[in-house]
């Protein structure tokens, strides 16, 4: 399998006035297309920062990032936005749906930014909602949905432009056991049946167990990279 993601010597630190806090040191990471990777680590380990770098929401201080065969280290803000739109899909802990828009409009929004017509975007949105089992709720507002339903809407939105990589940041952090299982089953099927590459940040072993590879960070360095069972404590 070809490498979808290659990080070479990536480092990042945050500056607050005079104080510089290093967060990531010299990260080397390859992720192949079709992988399902769990990123774990204690808080402050840098796993969220790594996630933001992978999602082109933030920039590394040094090092190189190749995504789908393209060096994306030095892209402009507009180019980054295009890569996020076309190649990446995001699922957040707090869902991050736009509360004034209904479910279908939320799902259609990335397609509109991609330049699709309103009609095409609407049709694709309904298709995606059917795929996550929420077609009947297309005209509800996010606030009228349960947490699990909102997260499935967010997944449908993340899939709108057929991304190569799905980035999920604590996707079950706000969900109960039952809906957590539903969301994880959905991610499993996307990975297994559609070959979607998934990177999930989590601190729950149960969630990480769904992945087929575990990357564990500590103090800004990768301290474990292997099968999830072997990485458990």
């Amino acid at each position, binding site marked *: 399998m070809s490498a979808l993601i290659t990080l070479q010597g990536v480092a990042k630190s945050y500056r607050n006035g005079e104080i510089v806090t290093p967060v990531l040191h010299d990260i080397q990471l390859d992720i192949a297309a079709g992988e399902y990777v769990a990123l774990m680590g204690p808080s402050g380990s840098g796993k969220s920062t790594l996630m*933001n770098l992978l*999602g082109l*929401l*933030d920039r590394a201080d040094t090092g190189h990032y190749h995504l789908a065969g393209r060096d994306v280290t030095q892209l402009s*803000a*507009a180019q980054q*936005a*295009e890569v*996020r*739109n*076309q190649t990446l899909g*995001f699922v*957040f802990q707090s869902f*991050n*749906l*736009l509360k*004034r828009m209904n479910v279908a409009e939320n799902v259609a*929004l*990335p397609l*509109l*930014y*991609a*330049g699709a*017509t*309103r009609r095409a975007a609407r049709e694709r949105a309904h298709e995606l909602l059917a795929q996550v089992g929420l077609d009947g709720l297309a005209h509800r507002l996010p606030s009228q949905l349960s947490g699990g339903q909102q997260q499935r809407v967010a997944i449908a*939105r*993340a899939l*709108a*432009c057929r991304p190569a990589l799905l980035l999920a940041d604590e996707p079950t952090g706000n969900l109960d056991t039952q809906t957590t299982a539903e969301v994880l089953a959905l991610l499993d099927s996307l990975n297994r049946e559609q070959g979607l590459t998934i990177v999930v940040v989590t601190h729950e072993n149960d969630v990480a167990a769904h992945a087929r590879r575990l990357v564990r960070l500590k103090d800004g360095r990768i301290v474990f990279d292997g099968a999830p069972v072997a990485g458990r404590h």
Partner: protein
Amino acid sequence: MSLLQTLLEAFRSLASNRLRTALTMLGIVIGIASVVLMLGVGDAVRAFIDRELSVLGSNQLIVQRGAPTAGGGGQRRPPNPDAVMLTIDDAAAINGLPSVAAAAATLQSIFPVLYGDNSTQSTVLGVTPEMFRVRNWVVDLGVAFTDEDLRSANRVILIGSKVAEANYLRRDPLGQVIRVGGRPFTVIGVLAGSGRTLDGTDLGELLVVPITAFPLVLPRPRAVHYINVQAISELRLKEAEADVAELLRDRRRITGDTPDDFNITNLASIAQTGANIAAGLSIGLGVIGAVSLLVGGIGIMNIMLVSVSERVREIGIRMAIGAKPRHVLTQFLAEAVVMCLMGGLVGVALAAGGVWAVNRIGAVGSFSMSLSLTHVGVAVLFSTAVGLFFGFYPARRASLLLPIECLRQE
């Protein structure tokens, strides 16, 4: 993202905060209303003066007996019964001045007028033939009277277009006999045009006879009520006024410090006074408009800045799913422009109400206002420009935000 989609989102966003949107729009509403009214007043005044001068004839002076009142000014006064009346010969002498193009003696009185069986009370003018030139009267049908009619005191009459229409709808008015003050006058012409003029007469309702045939017994032979004078040109109007004054003082043997027992009114100066008042009003409205637009624009900028900082998280989410900086920029710019355009349209509606009120109250003579498409176009252009100008800075700030910092914000 299409323009339509962007505008729809802008509408929705503004609609979600109606009170704030309405209050923010207020400055633009007042500003645009003032600008539209200012343009309307300017146009109306220009049209009004053009109309008045074309009806009255340009470069006009009116000479009456009676001392000028203190302060002078353009107001016409009732003639002073104690002063010696002006005569046709005074008019003829004024006619000979080099700065004067024409001078016409005039008598004016109200008579019972009989058209067949139909009797009314009407104002009748007795004039010399020069009056046609002085007042730019055009004979639509038939002919004007001549010096011969004047000498022979022929009982001929010219009537205004409204009079002709009211009394001779299906008949040729020429040759008809009208009884004025009991005496028969033959219609020889119909005057073109209608409309109330600054001196209070309606052109369409005029009845004009040779001054020598005027059916009124006068206290002095060849006496006239006033003399209409037209100067050679606008530039020589002042000179003509002085020449007429000097000539009349001479003819009436007024010397030294003795004040005039006649007065000269400059009709253009009445129109000009009106124009000056209107111009002042227009400038006042313009200043109010400019200040309102400035303050309204700053209000919009302020609210847009608030809106951006309230919606940082939304901006972050949009950026995460693929909004480019220009998408964010146009989104906020669209909100500012839509807000200004809505304010502008309300302002135009307000101005339309103002125009309606002005026309309803009815100012002087033929003064009327209208709302032209050009003014509405200017208003739309102005509101868009204000929206773009004051919306740009907040929108630009939003577009330069970093996605990671937006998403961190709760």
